[in-house]
Protein backbone atom coordinates (compact mmCIF):
# COMPACT_ATOMS: atom_id res chain seq x y z
CA UNK A 1 0.00 0.00 0.00
CA UNK A 2 2.78 2.46 0.78
CA UNK A 3 5.14 1.84 -2.13
CA UNK A 4 3.40 2.74 -5.36
CA UNK A 5 4.66 3.80 -8.79
CA UNK A 6 3.00 5.82 -11.51
CA UNK A 7 5.19 5.57 -14.61
CA UNK A 8 3.83 6.86 -17.90
CA UNK A 9 5.09 7.73 -21.36
CA UNK A 10 2.48 9.75 -23.19
CA UNK A 11 1.82 12.28 -25.93
CA UNK A 12 -0.53 14.45 -23.90
CA UNK A 13 0.42 17.06 -21.33
CA UNK A 14 0.10 15.99 -17.72
CA UNK A 15 -2.12 17.37 -14.98
CA UNK A 16 0.15 18.41 -12.13
CA UNK A 17 -2.70 18.42 -9.60
CA UNK A 18 -3.52 14.82 -10.45
CA UNK A 19 0.13 13.82 -10.02
CA UNK A 20 0.29 15.50 -6.59
CA UNK A 21 -2.95 13.74 -5.72
CA UNK A 22 -1.34 10.38 -6.53
CA UNK A 23 1.63 11.29 -4.31
CA UNK A 24 -0.37 12.65 -1.38
CA UNK A 25 -3.80 11.00 -1.22
CA UNK A 26 -4.26 8.87 1.90
CA UNK A 27 -0.53 9.16 2.55
CA UNK A 28 0.06 10.21 6.15
CA UNK A 29 3.44 8.44 6.37
CA UNK A 30 5.30 10.88 4.18
CA UNK A 31 5.78 14.50 5.15
CA UNK A 32 8.13 15.17 2.24
CA UNK A 33 7.26 15.50 -1.45
CA UNK A 34 10.08 16.50 -3.81
CA UNK A 35 9.35 17.05 -7.48
CA UNK A 36 11.05 18.11 -10.67
CA UNK A 37 9.36 19.44 -13.77
CA UNK A 38 11.26 19.85 -17.02
CA UNK A 39 9.98 21.98 -19.88
CA UNK A 40 11.11 23.03 -23.36
CA UNK A 41 13.15 26.18 -22.91
CA UNK A 42 14.37 28.83 -25.33
CA UNK A 43 18.04 28.00 -24.72
CA UNK A 44 17.47 24.36 -25.72
CA UNK A 45 16.47 25.61 -29.07
CA UNK A 46 18.69 27.16 -31.72
CA UNK A 47 17.70 29.95 -34.07
CA UNK A 48 14.60 29.65 -36.20
CA UNK A 49 13.37 26.71 -34.19
CA UNK A 50 9.72 26.04 -34.70
CA UNK A 51 9.33 23.02 -32.42
CA UNK A 52 10.77 19.89 -30.91
CA UNK A 53 10.04 16.21 -31.46
CA UNK A 54 10.72 13.57 -28.83
CA UNK A 55 11.43 10.11 -30.19
CA UNK A 56 11.68 7.10 -27.90
CA UNK A 57 12.23 3.33 -27.89
CA UNK A 58 8.80 1.97 -26.98
CA UNK A 59 8.96 -0.78 -24.42
CA UNK A 60 12.49 -0.02 -23.32
CA UNK A 61 11.40 3.44 -22.23
CA UNK A 62 9.00 2.11 -19.61
CA UNK A 63 11.45 -0.63 -18.61
CA UNK A 64 14.32 1.83 -18.12
CA UNK A 65 12.14 4.15 -16.04
CA UNK A 66 11.04 1.20 -13.93
CA UNK A 67 14.68 0.16 -13.45
CA UNK A 68 15.56 3.69 -12.32
CA UNK A 69 12.78 3.60 -9.73
CA UNK A 70 13.94 0.18 -8.49
CA UNK A 71 17.46 1.54 -8.03
CA UNK A 72 16.19 4.61 -6.20
CA UNK A 73 14.13 2.43 -3.86
CA UNK A 74 17.25 0.39 -3.05
CA UNK A 75 19.11 3.53 -1.99
CA UNK A 76 16.52 5.65 -0.22
CA UNK A 77 13.48 5.29 2.00
CA UNK A 78 10.87 6.47 -0.47
CA UNK A 79 7.25 5.48 -0.93
CA UNK A 80 5.32 6.91 -3.85
CA UNK A 81 7.03 7.69 -7.12
CA UNK A 82 5.73 9.40 -10.25
CA UNK A 83 7.59 9.60 -13.55
CA UNK A 84 5.73 10.97 -16.56
CA UNK A 85 7.58 11.69 -19.79
CA UNK A 86 6.05 13.06 -22.97
CA UNK A 87 6.92 11.99 -26.52
CA UNK A 88 5.97 13.42 -29.90
CA UNK A 89 5.74 17.02 -31.04
CA UNK A 90 6.29 19.77 -28.43
CA UNK A 91 6.41 23.56 -28.49
CA UNK A 92 8.45 26.13 -26.58
CA UNK A 93 7.32 26.16 -22.94
CA UNK A 94 5.63 22.76 -23.12
CA UNK A 95 6.17 20.35 -20.24
CA UNK A 96 8.45 17.40 -21.02
CA UNK A 97 8.92 15.43 -17.81
CA UNK A 98 7.66 15.27 -14.23
CA UNK A 99 9.37 13.29 -11.48
CA UNK A 100 7.88 13.23 -7.97
CA UNK A 101 8.75 11.22 -4.89
CA UNK A 102 7.49 11.02 -1.31
CA UNK A 103 9.38 10.04 1.81
CA UNK A 104 9.20 10.46 5.56
CA UNK A 105 12.59 12.20 5.18
CA UNK A 106 13.18 15.47 3.36
CA UNK A 107 16.75 14.61 2.35
CA UNK A 108 15.72 11.22 0.95
CA UNK A 109 12.99 12.82 -1.16
CA UNK A 110 15.38 15.41 -2.62
CA UNK A 111 18.18 12.92 -3.31
CA UNK A 112 15.94 10.29 -4.87
CA UNK A 113 14.25 12.88 -7.08
CA UNK A 114 17.53 14.30 -8.37
CA UNK A 115 19.00 10.79 -8.82
CA UNK A 116 16.00 9.72 -10.90
CA UNK A 117 16.26 12.83 -13.11
CA UNK A 118 20.02 12.37 -13.59
CA UNK A 119 19.59 8.71 -14.50
CA UNK A 120 16.62 9.42 -16.75
CA UNK A 121 18.74 12.00 -18.61
CA UNK A 122 21.49 9.47 -19.33
CA UNK A 123 19.77 6.05 -19.37
CA UNK A 124 16.21 6.40 -20.62
CA UNK A 125 15.93 6.08 -24.43
CA UNK A 126 14.48 9.44 -25.44
CA UNK A 127 15.93 11.68 -28.15
CA UNK A 128 15.08 15.29 -28.98
CA UNK A 129 15.01 16.65 -32.51
CA UNK A 130 14.60 20.33 -33.33
CA UNK A 131 12.53 21.47 -36.27
CA UNK A 132 13.97 24.63 -37.80
CA UNK A 133 13.20 26.70 -40.84
CA UNK A 134 16.30 25.12 -42.45
CA UNK A 135 15.31 21.55 -41.57
CA UNK A 136 15.52 19.16 -38.64
CA UNK A 137 18.52 18.52 -36.41
CA UNK A 138 19.10 16.18 -33.48
CA UNK A 139 20.10 17.71 -30.15
CA UNK A 140 23.52 16.64 -28.87
CA UNK A 141 23.90 14.93 -25.48
CA UNK A 142 25.71 17.05 -22.90
CA UNK A 143 28.81 15.92 -21.02
CA UNK A 144 27.48 17.69 -17.92
CA UNK A 145 24.58 15.24 -17.78
CA UNK A 146 26.91 12.24 -17.92
CA UNK A 147 29.07 13.77 -15.19
CA UNK A 148 26.09 14.45 -12.97
CA UNK A 149 24.84 10.86 -13.32
CA UNK A 150 28.29 9.41 -12.58
CA UNK A 151 28.42 11.18 -9.22
CA UNK A 152 25.72 9.00 -7.64
Amino acid at each position, binding site marked *: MRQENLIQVQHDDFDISALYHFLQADNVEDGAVATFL*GAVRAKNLGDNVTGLT*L*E*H*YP*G*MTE*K*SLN*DIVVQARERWDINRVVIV*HRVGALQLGDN*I*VFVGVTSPHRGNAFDACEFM*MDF*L*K*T*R*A*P*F*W*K*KESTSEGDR*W*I*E*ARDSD*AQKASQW
Partner: protein
Amino acid sequence: MSCFGDKSLIKVLFFAHLKERLGCDSLMLKAAPATVAEVRQQILEMHPNWRDDFESLAKLSAVNQTICDDNQLVETGDEVAFFPPVTGG
Protein backbone atom coordinates in the same frame (compact mmCIF):
# COMPACT_ATOMS: atom_id res chain seq x y z
CA MET B 1 12.00 2.12 -44.01
CA SER B 2 12.70 -1.23 -42.34
CA CYS B 3 15.27 -3.41 -44.03
CA PHE B 4 16.06 -7.01 -43.16
CA GLY B 5 19.39 -8.79 -43.31
CA ASP B 6 19.47 -12.57 -43.22
CA LYS B 7 16.15 -13.93 -42.02
CA SER B 8 17.30 -15.16 -38.64
CA LEU B 9 17.22 -15.08 -34.94
CA ILE B 10 18.56 -11.88 -33.44
CA LYS B 11 16.52 -8.72 -33.87
CA VAL B 12 18.47 -5.48 -34.16
CA LEU B 13 16.93 -2.00 -33.77
CA PHE B 14 18.28 1.46 -34.53
CA PHE B 15 16.98 4.77 -33.17
CA ALA B 16 17.12 8.52 -33.62
CA HIS B 17 19.90 10.01 -35.82
CA LEU B 18 21.49 6.57 -36.26
CA LYS B 19 18.24 5.24 -37.70
CA GLU B 20 17.92 8.25 -39.99
CA ARG B 21 21.50 8.07 -41.25
CA LEU B 22 21.34 4.34 -41.92
CA GLY B 23 17.90 4.70 -43.47
CA CYS B 24 17.01 1.58 -41.49
CA ASP B 25 15.15 1.04 -38.24
CA SER B 26 15.61 -2.73 -37.81
CA LEU B 27 17.12 -5.88 -39.24
CA MET B 28 17.35 -9.56 -38.39
CA LEU B 29 20.68 -11.30 -37.89
CA LYS B 30 21.58 -14.95 -38.07
CA ALA B 31 23.99 -15.24 -35.20
CA ALA B 32 25.14 -17.84 -32.75
CA PRO B 33 25.36 -16.61 -29.17
CA ALA B 34 27.84 -13.75 -29.34
CA THR B 35 28.80 -10.49 -27.68
CA VAL B 36 27.40 -7.09 -28.59
CA ALA B 37 30.82 -6.31 -30.09
CA GLU B 38 30.49 -9.33 -32.40
CA VAL B 39 26.98 -8.25 -33.38
CA ARG B 40 28.37 -4.83 -34.32
CA GLN B 41 31.03 -6.51 -36.43
CA GLN B 42 28.55 -8.73 -38.18
CA ILE B 43 26.32 -5.78 -39.05
CA LEU B 44 29.27 -3.86 -40.50
CA GLU B 45 30.33 -6.88 -42.55
CA MET B 46 26.84 -6.88 -44.07
CA HIS B 47 26.81 -3.09 -44.50
CA PRO B 48 30.40 -1.83 -44.82
CA ASN B 49 29.15 1.63 -45.79
CA TRP B 50 27.52 2.01 -42.34
CA ARG B 51 30.90 2.11 -40.59
CA ASP B 52 31.24 5.89 -40.16
CA ASP B 53 27.68 6.41 -38.96
CA PHE B 54 27.94 3.42 -36.67
CA GLU B 55 31.15 4.64 -35.11
CA SER B 56 29.90 8.17 -34.56
CA LEU B 57 26.32 7.43 -33.57
CA ALA B 58 25.94 3.86 -32.24
CA LYS B 59 27.44 4.94 -28.92
CA LEU B 60 24.98 3.05 -26.74
CA SER B 61 23.59 -0.44 -26.95
CA ALA B 62 20.85 -2.35 -25.17
CA VAL B 63 20.11 -6.05 -25.04
CA ASN B 64 16.51 -6.92 -24.31
CA GLN B 65 15.83 -3.27 -23.47
CA THR B 66 18.55 -2.93 -20.85
CA ILE B 67 21.58 -0.71 -21.53
CA CYS B 68 24.79 -2.77 -21.67
CA ASP B 69 28.36 -2.60 -22.86
CA ASP B 70 30.04 -4.37 -25.79
CA ASN B 71 30.90 -7.42 -23.67
CA GLN B 72 27.26 -8.25 -23.02
CA LEU B 73 26.30 -11.70 -24.33
CA VAL B 74 23.55 -11.89 -26.95
CA GLU B 75 21.59 -15.08 -27.52
CA THR B 76 19.26 -16.03 -30.33
CA GLY B 77 15.84 -14.58 -29.70
CA ASP B 78 17.31 -11.45 -28.10
CA GLU B 79 16.51 -7.89 -29.10
CA VAL B 80 19.62 -5.75 -29.56
CA ALA B 81 19.40 -1.99 -30.04
CA PHE B 82 21.99 0.61 -31.03
CA PHE B 83 21.47 4.33 -30.54
CA PRO B 84 23.14 7.69 -29.88
CA PRO B 85 23.46 9.13 -26.36
CA VAL B 86 20.00 9.85 -25.05
CA THR B 87 18.70 13.41 -24.71
CA GLY B 88 15.36 13.13 -22.93
CA GLY B 89 14.22 14.76 -19.72
